[in-house]
């Protein structure tokens, strides 16, 4: 079949910076471990299999600076290994416990193998360096990694002090360069939060393109003639790709989205909640509260509480069927759309990376099958990265994208509403103070310089959109509120200590160890524009 267009997958890999050397008791740290085991390692395995099998594919991933910092943190490596050892121990016990039931016992073996393999890969093969693994696939040309705001700060809230947006971009780009040895061409705007004010800073730091929500393109001015099927370029020179609605729906939809297939693994049935309490106690929260362990034996089955055992083969069958459906849908879509265009359409499919594997357990396998099908089957499109697309088709319609985000209802309501709006004046004030400090200490040295750099880290950490999101979402609210308070508190304390030239060195040392993100940060980035 003649090739008529392109599909571009963009997976946004992000977790907020969570690092607590002071305690083992923060469950929030396990977000990282779950994501490594269920998403990042499975994706790396998919890439490797495809490469080994000679399948030509393209995929784009944003890896955010806080995620990179955590993947590069020795303490977190140790804790992850401990997490795996615990799970391996538990699955060994499970193998014994489930000896009475063949099907269940097979699943216990499956988990034992899976976690053992993770440990072997992570510790012995990858030498704890997952970043290097992703970099490898970028270096051989199948993966394009893009950057993000330094701590996922939401631009439509921060831009009232433009220096803080510029710093988010600058540190995002610097962190990327540190780990990947080149400049990023693209950026995942935190929460796809687009404001035209950021264009000039994105261009300043060499960013060619950004990903925006569908109406970022559709509501642009003037109206883009190709809708979301081609990028637009802002007057300031930033190319913007819009999310395709149809393909998003097929994956995300709560009614008929792929992850709801009855053969897929049921996320909520976990032995952490179901096993005998004394038996499971060593593997749940330290204070005895039941939590997810990662060992789950059931499939979704249907709209029923009577769940059947998970069957890996059946789940794979479903994934294969759905990959075929996705392929046919895109083929049909591109066939139709291409007639209305003078350039080949690009169907951009952005998702949370953690959707694949963590939430949708079979997601990585689905991707693997889909990419093979695209390569081997007779379809009318190829995979492409946004960079390759704009290099091939540099004639782009000029239009100003619409201020937008990918949050509920498409604007700022998720990150600004009565549950979290108390925080914004503090974020703004701290931002203004940081600009004041950077401007009035142009040549700081020694302890003052260290304190200024730490103040910049504290500000950045306070700005994570994650805290505001979590408060809105109603989960882990106390933790999110605590983080905002702590970072604003530490920042404010440093601000006064710097201004009075009385730095408490023990305090500074302590928070440098805790909030050790961006070791190379240079506070000058906040100098008044």
């Amino acid at each position, binding site marked *: 079949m003649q090739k008529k267009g392109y599909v571009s997958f963009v997976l946004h890999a992000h977790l907020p910076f969570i690092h607590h050397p002071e305690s083992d008791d923060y469950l929030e740290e396990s977000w990282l471990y779950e994501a490594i085991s269920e998403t990042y390692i499975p994706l790396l395995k998919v890439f490797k299999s495809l490469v080994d099998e000679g399948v030509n594919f393209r995929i784009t991933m944003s890896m955010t600076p806080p995620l990179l910092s955590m993947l590069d943190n020795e303490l977190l490596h140790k804790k992850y290994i401990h997490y795996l050892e615990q799970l391996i121990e538990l699955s060994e016990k499970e193998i014994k416990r489930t000896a009475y039931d063949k099907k269940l016992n097979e699943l216990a073996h499956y988990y034992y193998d899976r976690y053992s393999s993770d440990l072997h890969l992570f510790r012995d093969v990858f030498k704890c360096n997952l970043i290097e693994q992703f970099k490898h696939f970028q270096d051989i040309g199948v993966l394009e990694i893009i950057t993000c705001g330094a701590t996922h700060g939401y631009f439509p809230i921060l831009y009232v002090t433009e220096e803080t947006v510029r710093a988010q971009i600058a540190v995002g780009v610097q962190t990327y360069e540190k780990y990947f040895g080149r400049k990023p061409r693209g950026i995942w705007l935190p929460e796809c939060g687009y404001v035209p004010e950021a264009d000039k800073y994105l261009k300043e730091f060499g960013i060619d393109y950004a990903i925006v929500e569908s109406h970022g393109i559709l509501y642009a*001015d003037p109206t883009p003639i190709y809708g979301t099927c081609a990028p637009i370029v802002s007057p300031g020179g930033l190319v913007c790709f819009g999310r395709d609605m149809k393909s998003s729906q097929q994956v995300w939809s709560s009614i008929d989205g792929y992850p709801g297939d009855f053969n897929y693994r049921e996320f909520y049935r976990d032995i952490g909640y179901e096993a005998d309490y004394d038996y499971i106690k060593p593997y749940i929260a330290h204070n005895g509260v039941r939590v997810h362990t990662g060992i789950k034996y059931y499939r979704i089955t249907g709209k029923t509480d009577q769940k059947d055992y998970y069957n890996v083969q059946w789940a794979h069958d479903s994934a294969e069927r759905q990959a075929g459906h996705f392929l046919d849908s895109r083929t049909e879509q591109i066939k139709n759309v291409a007639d209305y265009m003078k350039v080949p359409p690009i169907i951009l499919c952005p998702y949370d990376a953690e959707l694949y594997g963590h939430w949708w357990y079979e997601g990585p396998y689905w991707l693997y099958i889909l990419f093979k099908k695209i390569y081997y089957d007779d379809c009318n499109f190829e995979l492409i990265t946004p960079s390759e697309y704009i290099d091939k088709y540099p004639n782009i319609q000029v239009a100003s994208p619409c201020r937008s985000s990918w949050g509920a209802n498409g604007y700022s309501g998720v990150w600004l509403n009565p549950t979290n709006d108390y925080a914004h004046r503090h974020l703004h004030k701290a931002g203004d103070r940081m600009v004041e400090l950077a401007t009035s200490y142009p040549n700081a040295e020694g302890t003052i310089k260290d304190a200024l750099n730490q103040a910049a880290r504290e500000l950045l950490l306070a700005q994570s959109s994650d805290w505001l999101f979590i408060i809105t979402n109603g989960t882990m609210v106390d933790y999110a509120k605590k983080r905002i308070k702590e970072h604003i508190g530490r920042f404010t304390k440093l601000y006064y200590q710097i201004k009075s030239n009385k730095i408490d060195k023990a305090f500074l040392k302590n928070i440098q160890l805790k909030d050790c993100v961006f070791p190379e940060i240079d506070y000058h980035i906040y100098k008044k524009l």
Partner: protein
Amino acid sequence: MPTKTKEINEKNNKKTNKVATTKTTVKPKTSSKGTAKKKDTAKKAVAKKAEKKVTAKKTTVKKTTTTAKKATVKKASTKKVTARKSTAKKAATTRKATGKTKKQEQFVDIVEYYDLPYRYNETVVKILYQTPNTLFVYWDISDKDRENYIKQYGENFFNITRPVLIIHNITMNYSFEVPIDDFANSWYLHINDSKCDYKVELGRRPNYYNEEATKEIQENINTDYIYVSSSNEIETPNDHVLFSTNENNTIKFRNIKNNDEKTISLVDFVRSLPALKEKRDIPIISEEIFQAVYSGIYKDEDINFFERLSNPSSGGLATSNMSSSRSALF
């Protein structure tokens, strides 16, 4: 450590919500003013002392009952996000209580205690957009400015005047006013026109609530309006497909490699598209031209979808941390 007597601690500040009174207001948020002034210094002193002691552990442990927890877990098989979420939340906050000795050898922690300052004691008005039709505004008046008003207009100035917000739509050149109250320090404002530049002004108007006040106003204030401060200027987002073109019904393309720009008539451009080449009745009004193309590109979509575009991952879950993916399908 410098004391921050001016940044008043948030702690004693009780928030109460008031119901919106006018059509233009959405949800006012209120807070008390000027009460908890001394608290901060006291607390800081304590915190400082505590730092010196190098004790290892924070003591704010949240109490949760495992029994309550188990009750929620029972429901785990029914697909109720709410039940499960609360479970996860409790788990996260409770894990602190035990196992505290192990890490201390490696990491000597200091005790930190923070509260957000209640205010920064500066005169400020800031606005953000929440949606194309809602602005969020927060403000404060510094003690110094308050004193100045009192010097100028008398001791009762803040009792015989009331605050107002004046919303200026700069693009369309109109303004409207929303009365607010002194218990609030932020507000949500409904605005009718999207994709416009806005600025919000904080001011005060005489409040003739009784004869005595009226008399005092006549004697001391003698004006209808007192300006306090103005906000930053922002543009609100667009909320629909504009079906607009560049000048003279053209569209513009830029070669991003060399920045060459080319302007093409929309009609000519559309006539050369494969799907429309053969068509005779291509419209000439640009809005209709766009609709002809969009109804082709988005042929399976509901024709009204441009007006109520929402993304499929919406519902508060369209971000990227784990819990969002968790709730994504419910």
